[in-house]
Structures are given as C-alpha cells and as structure tokens.
C-alpha cells in the first residue's frame, strides 16, 4: 500500500520552546494509524504541525506532494480534515451552518447534498437539532458534529485528536464505531490521537509511540499492543 502521508524529521516549536525533535511516520492509504504517548509527548503538536498551525521544520508529503510550509487553509483544501481536541465546532453558528461552512471549499453542490444526507445517516441526532446553536449541544453531540463537519469536507485524510475527550464510555464506543465505518465505507484514512490506548489500538492498524517529541516505537497495532513497555505504560497491565 502506498503511503498517503509521509512525515520525516519533523520538528515543531512554540516560540523558543521546541516540542518535537525528530518525528517520522507513514500513513498507508485507507488505513487507521494511531499516535500513542503520555501527556506532553507531542501527539497534538504533531497533528497541528501537519496542518501548519505551529512553526515547523521537516518534510511532510501528502499524496506525493510536499505540503510543509503551506498555509493551513490551503492544506485543508487538499482534503485533510483536522478535528481538534475538545469541541471542534463553531459554537455560535447553528448545526446547519456548521455543516454548510465545512463544505465551503467544495464546488460539487449535488455531492455535498448527498454527503449531508449520509452524515445524517451516521448522526440522526444532528438532523433533529439542525437549527440549534452548536454551543447548546451536549458534549457527545458536539463530538458528532465535529466528525460530521470533517466528513463534509469529503476528506482523504482525517486527523482526529482525542475523540473520547470528556465523554461517557457508551458515547465513546459509539464514536469509535462510527470512525471505523467512516474508514471502511467512505475510504477515509485516519490519523488518531487518543489517551485511551486500548481503544485506539483496537481501532488502528498501525501505531507509533511518541516520547518527548520523538518516535520511540512503531509497528502494526497487534505487535505494539503486545510490547511489554507499551502494556505497562499505556495499557496498565
């Protein structure tokens, strides 16, 4: 399988502080890859670096094209959907407006309409709340809206930061089920950052472990899952 996203020697800086030193990984087209690591290891920063939301240095190739240094909005237009941690929605806009703005860059109006219907198929709850302001939705509904919003971009790659953040276990399970369907049915490749390593390793085909801004381990999820250090540090048994 060819790599959809190729990252080599990635460094990132917040002001004078360097938070990524040498991050490299590949995301196969059509797969789900997860980044594991403790708080502060640089997982979120890696996602932000891909979209040029922090100062970065290194190589980032998407579908064979060098995208390092391009403006965030231009990278998004290559159909990379980044759903940031927490509530990735416009809180003062309605659900309907959130979904419409998500398809702002698309010109294929008929396909947008079909995608809207499909998104409502995944999240019927959003259809009931279509005229409600996003900020008034429950935490789970906002997560659904954030994913729905990302889907409306018709992404080739989805960068998903902490989908379980602040949610009840049942809702987390539902969100992960939907992420799998999105990957299988819509052929969206996913790069997943998740605190809950057990869940992430179940969903993902490949895993990379970050420590203080460096990749310290990588491989197929099944292998990483059984690594003794990973088990002790991230899985807790």
């Amino acid at each position, binding site marked *: 399988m060819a790599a959809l996203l190729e990252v080599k020697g990635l460094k990132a800086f917040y002001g004078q502080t360097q938070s990524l030193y040498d991050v490299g990984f590949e995301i196969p087209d059509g797969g789900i890859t997860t980044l594991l690591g403790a708080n502060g290891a640089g997982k979120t920063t890696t996602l932000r670096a891909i*979209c040029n*939301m922090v100062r970065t240095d290194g190589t980032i190739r998407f579908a064979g094209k060098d995208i390092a240094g391009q*403006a*965030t*909005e231009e990278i*998004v*237009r290559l159909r990379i*959907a*980044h759903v*940031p941690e927490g509530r*990735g*929605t*416009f*809180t*003062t*806009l309605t659900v309907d*407006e959130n979904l*419409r*703005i*998500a398809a*702002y*860059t698309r010109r294929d109006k008929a396909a947008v309409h079909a995608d809207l219907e499909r998104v409502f198929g995944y999240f019927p709850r959003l259809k009931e709340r279509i005229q409600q302001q996003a900020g008034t939705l429950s935490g789970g509904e906002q997560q659904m809206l954030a994913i729905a*919003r990302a889907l409306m*971009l018709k992404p080739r790659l989805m960068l998903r930061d902490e989908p379980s953040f602040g949610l009840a276990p049942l809702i987390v399970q539902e969100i992960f089920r939907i992420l799998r369907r999105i990957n299988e049915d819509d052929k969206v490749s996913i790069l997943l950052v998740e605190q809950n390593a057990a869940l992430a390793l179940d969903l993902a085909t490949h895993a990379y472990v970050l420590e203080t801004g460096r990749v310290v381990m990588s491989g197929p999820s099944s292998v990483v899952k059984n690594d003794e250090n990973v088990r002790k540090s991230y899985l807790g048994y």
Partner: protein
Amino acid sequence: MEQFLQQIASGLANGAIYACVALALVMIYVSTDHINFAQGEMAMFSTYISWQLMTWGVSFWFAFVLAVVFSFVLGVVIERAILRPLHNAPVLSIVVVFIGLLAICNSVAGAIWSYLIKEFPSPFPKSSFGIAGVIGPHQLGVVIVTLVVLGLLFAFFRYTPLGLAMRAAAQNPQMARLVGVRVDWMLALGWGLAAAVGAVAGIMVAHIVYLDPNMMGGILLYAFASALVGGIGNPGGAVVGGFIVGVLENMVAYAGNQIEKATGIYIIGNGEKLTVALIIVITVLTVKPAGLFGRVVVKRV
C-alpha cells in the same frame, strides 16, 4: 404633539446614520477586537469623493454607488497594506495606527477640498415625499436608504456562503482555517464592507450636517455610544442601539425645552446633545458593560 412626533422622526433619521456607522465599527470589532477610530473620517473622505463626482456632473445616485464602491476598495487596501503587517502587534500600536489614519484622512481631505463648509444636495424629491409636519423628505429618504442597505447586509451575512464564511472567520479564526476559509481575506473583506456602510452614512448625513472634513467627528461618538448600547459584539444590537441613541438624544433635548418653557429653568437643550451621547457611553460601561443585547463573555480558566 406635532413637535413631539417631529422630534421622534428626526431622531429616527439620525439614528439610521448612527446605526450604519455603529455597524461598521462592530463589523471590524467582532473579527479583530479593535475599534476603528478612523471609521468616521474614512466615511467623510468617501462623501467628498461623491461630492467631487457630482461637481463633475455625475448624477447623485451614480456618484453614490461609485463612492461606495471606492470606499469598499479603499477599506480592503487599508487592511491589506497597513493592518496586515501589524497582525501580531500590541493593541496600542494598532490604536496609534487608527489615530494616524484618522489624521491622514482629515488632512488629505482638507488639503484637496479645503476646510470650507460646503452644501451637499439631497436626492429626494421635495414635494410629495415624507409626511407633512412630521418627517421631511430627506429624513424619510435617509431612513429608507439605510434600512435597505442594512437589510442587504443582513441577507448577505445570513444567506450567502461568503457571508457565512465571514461570520465563521470572526467567531473562530483557527477553526475557520481548518474548514478552508481564507481568514486573512475575510478580514480585508470585512474592512471593505465596513468602509462601504460608513460611506452610505456619510453621503446620507452630509445634507443635514453639511460637508466639511470634521463632519463625522460627533457622529462617530454617537455611533460608538450606539454600538455600546446594543452590545459591542452584536451587529443587530448596534443597529437597534443606533435608533435608540438617535431618538433618545432628541427626547432629552425636547424634554429640556418643555421644562424650560414651563418653569423658565434651563437644564438641558439642543446644545447638550453630544453630552447625552457621552453620558450614555459612561452609563452603559459602568452599569451594563455587555450592552442591551450583548453576551457576557465568561472565560474558562
């Protein structure tokens, strides 16, 4: 009674002007958190452009449209050329730039067209327009034109993809980038629209206050008061605030006149109208800082 209605009507006409300028201020405020002190002077400059076109023989409405388009372009250019490089500058630097812009517009207009006060025509027919004894043709015309412009703006922001993108960019620039909105251009566009709305206000009010480089000074203050009354981050509130302030200043002066007539004691009159605006500013800021329609912003720490 007739005098009372007259005062309300002229208050509404003035209020329409304040509403436009207040909306211009709010449009820039919501996306940048800055108050453009030069908004009034930019509008004045646009008004001179329309006047110049008219003296060259261009008809009123054509000159109106050209001046509004010119203002739009000027607004975009100012944002791109002057404010873009100051994107991460501290607030004070930006305030200084605004004051500089104010002074530049004022003195350039003075240099080109002199500080002599000029008459400015009204496009509205004298007879059979307005309601005799209550509202004059120009006042009624001003209310109609501004309401049409405000309605168009509302429809633009509410119903078009570009308007939606501008609102998204103002609400959460980083998220807007993540859905592919070119946020920098949205800001420039916002400046253009604000300048255009300001120009409409300037051209409409010039017949009433006459044309001179300092014509917008007081109006900017009223507009600021209006924006605060409505809630500085709320465009609809700014418009309502404009009408409230316009009517209120007339009512205060009217009440003062009535008291003087009845008792012979002078408390307040037409001369103190601007003071009323300042009192409104101070009262709103101390009693209800979020304004009538504003939301109290609570920051999670």
